[in-house]
């Protein structure tokens, strides 16, 4: 403490960092809050970056400050300011130029970055992107001007969102997916038929069960891609969407890092007065109790708020994060996937119901007493109720038929 006021330092100005800063401020009006970001842009809603590519939004329309629950007030925001090292002994963070900033409470909210698979050759060629930041979206937008065909490596949500933005720009877009089907992290192949239909109708080309071996280059950067099976596709733009990995590149000595910065149920690290939240943090899954890293905005905000309250002196337990908690709409089909949805070869009680316009899969524990996962495609109404049921580990016997038939409403909880 310096003169009775706390110095809060937050590394990373993403969802977790900004949510934490607001939470600290809500409890402690006097302490100083300093937030470091190595990005040049003021904090923004990261999931919106595809809209910069499609031209539907400008960067200023994506800024967090003053939007939603973010006031952006009462904090000292340092942009273009990378933290090189954390010195827990000296209780200070160290900037690239050597300047040290002391903290009383520190939050590590450095997020994650796109994973670039080492086995693919040519990923540093001009015209190869891994969309994650506004800067990367600007670079893609610039490349689009002279491109006709974009190849997306990876069939996850991020790549689908970017693929749609590129389609809207008028490009031909081909998705190259190693798994047997798109969205393999969020559902099983047989769950995807409505979505696959929608993607096909939207004009997306999809190659499944195929990986990229090498990205080819010509005089103007990317000229094509060579698949593992020998096929060659010419293109001017490649986007890599192969998942993310936590940003733990800062120097430190005593912080426990195990696939991310390990945080306890109160978002604390193993070193006192150091906290972690968001994509960089290793937290726990309330269903399995296992340790997980989530790449989710929703979890990053929850964890960040929790960390902020803890840092400002109000002990707040974090309820844990579902590994899967996604809602979106691809083309004209909405879907929600949450909790345990990969059931093949496993001992869950699974109820599946499909029709021409909707599909759902409800997954219960092997003894049938708890809901553990839900996939809704098409009709996603009242999906939040299922999240509560899963998260609270509710005993479902009284409401089970309503869950299976998707007729559950809030009245059932109090009736």
């Amino acid at each position, binding site marked *: 403490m310096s003169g009775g006021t706390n110095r809060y330092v937050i590394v990373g100005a993403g969802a977790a960092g900004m949510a934490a800063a607001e939470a600290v401020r809500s409890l402690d009006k006097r302490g100083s809050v300093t937030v470091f970001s190595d990005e040049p842009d003021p904090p923004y*809603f990261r999931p919106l970056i595809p809209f910069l590519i499609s031209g539907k939004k400008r960067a200023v329309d994506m800024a967090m400050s003053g939007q*939603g629950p973010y006031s952006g007030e009462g904090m000292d925001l340092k942009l273009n300011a990378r933290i090189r090292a954390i010195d827990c002994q000296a209780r200070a963070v160290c900037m690239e130029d050597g300047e040290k900033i002391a903290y009383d409470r520190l939050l590590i909210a450095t997020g994650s970055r796109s994973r670039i698979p080492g086995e693919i050759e040519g990923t540093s060629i001009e015209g190869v992107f891994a969309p994650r930041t506004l800067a990367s979206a600007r670079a893609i937008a610039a490349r689009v001007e002279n491109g006709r065909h974009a190849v997306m490596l990876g069939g996850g949500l991020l790549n689908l969102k970017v693929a749609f933005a590129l389609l809207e720009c008028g490009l031909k877009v081909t998705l190259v997916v190693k798994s047997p089907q798109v969205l393999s992290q969020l559902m099983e192949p047989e769950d995807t038929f409505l979505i696959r239909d929608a993607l096909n109708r939207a004009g997306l080309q999809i190659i499944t069960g195929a990986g990229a071996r090498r990205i080819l280059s010509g005089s103007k950067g990317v000229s094509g891609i060579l698949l593992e099976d020998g096929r060659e596709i010419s293109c001017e733009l490649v986007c890599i969407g192969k998942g993310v990995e936590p940003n733990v590149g800062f120097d430190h000595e005593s912080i426990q890092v195990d696939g991310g910065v390990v945080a306890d149920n109160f978002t604390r690290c193993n070193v006192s007065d150091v906290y972690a939240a968001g994509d960089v943090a290793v937290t726990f899954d309330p269903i399995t109790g296992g340790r997980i890293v989530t790449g989710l905005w929703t979890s990053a905000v929850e964890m960040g708020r929790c960390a902020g309250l803890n840092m400002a002196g109000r002990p707040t337990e974090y309820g844990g994060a579902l590994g899967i908690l996604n809602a979106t*709409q691809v083309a004209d089909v909405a879907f929600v996937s949450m909790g345990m949805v990969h059931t093949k070869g496993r001992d869950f009680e699974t109820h599946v119901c499909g029709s021409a316009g909707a599909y759902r899969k409800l997954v219960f524990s092997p003894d049938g007493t708890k809901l553990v996962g839900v996939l809704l495609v098409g009709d996603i*109404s*009242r999906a*939040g*109720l299922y999240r509560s049921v899963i998260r609270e580990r509710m005993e479902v016997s009284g409401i089970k038929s309503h869950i299976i038939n998707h007729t559950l409403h*809030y009245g*059932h909880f109090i009736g």
Partner: protein
Amino acid sequence: MPEPKEIFVRVDRCMGCHSCELACAVEHSSSRSLYGAISETPRPKNRVYVEFVPPSNPIPLLCRHCEDAPCMHACIAGAIVRTEEGVVITRSDKCIGCWTCVMVCPYGVIGRHLEQHKAYRCDRCPDRSLPACVDACPTKALVYLTAGDFSKGVRLTASAGMLTGQGG
């Protein structure tokens, strides 16, 4: 600022007549008249829902404008804000129709406007002194009061109390 009013539900009084749903849809139509609303496309959407709890107890459900609104914190577009009056609203211009709010709302009361590709919910009728659903309720199952007045003035049933609780 004086304590803002909220819509409270007295479940024991609800007869399940659906008047609130109709009044809500009309209030949120372009014509704001029953005749006009019926013929509008897309059809005006109600934001209060009368559901039935077995054996046949009706219960009106609508946005609680939660203090710690999960939808507002979860929104990946910054489209959900709390107004000075304490009303949690979705700003249509910012909403990208990703349905994250639908996925996290513990009451299941955020609707999807498919034609506009936007989320919608109770906005407490900003243009009216008394929300349309409350005005239309023949049994006063829906009341518009401050939290203080509500707990003072009514025999608080256990279930009504639960309805005003927060979830997340």
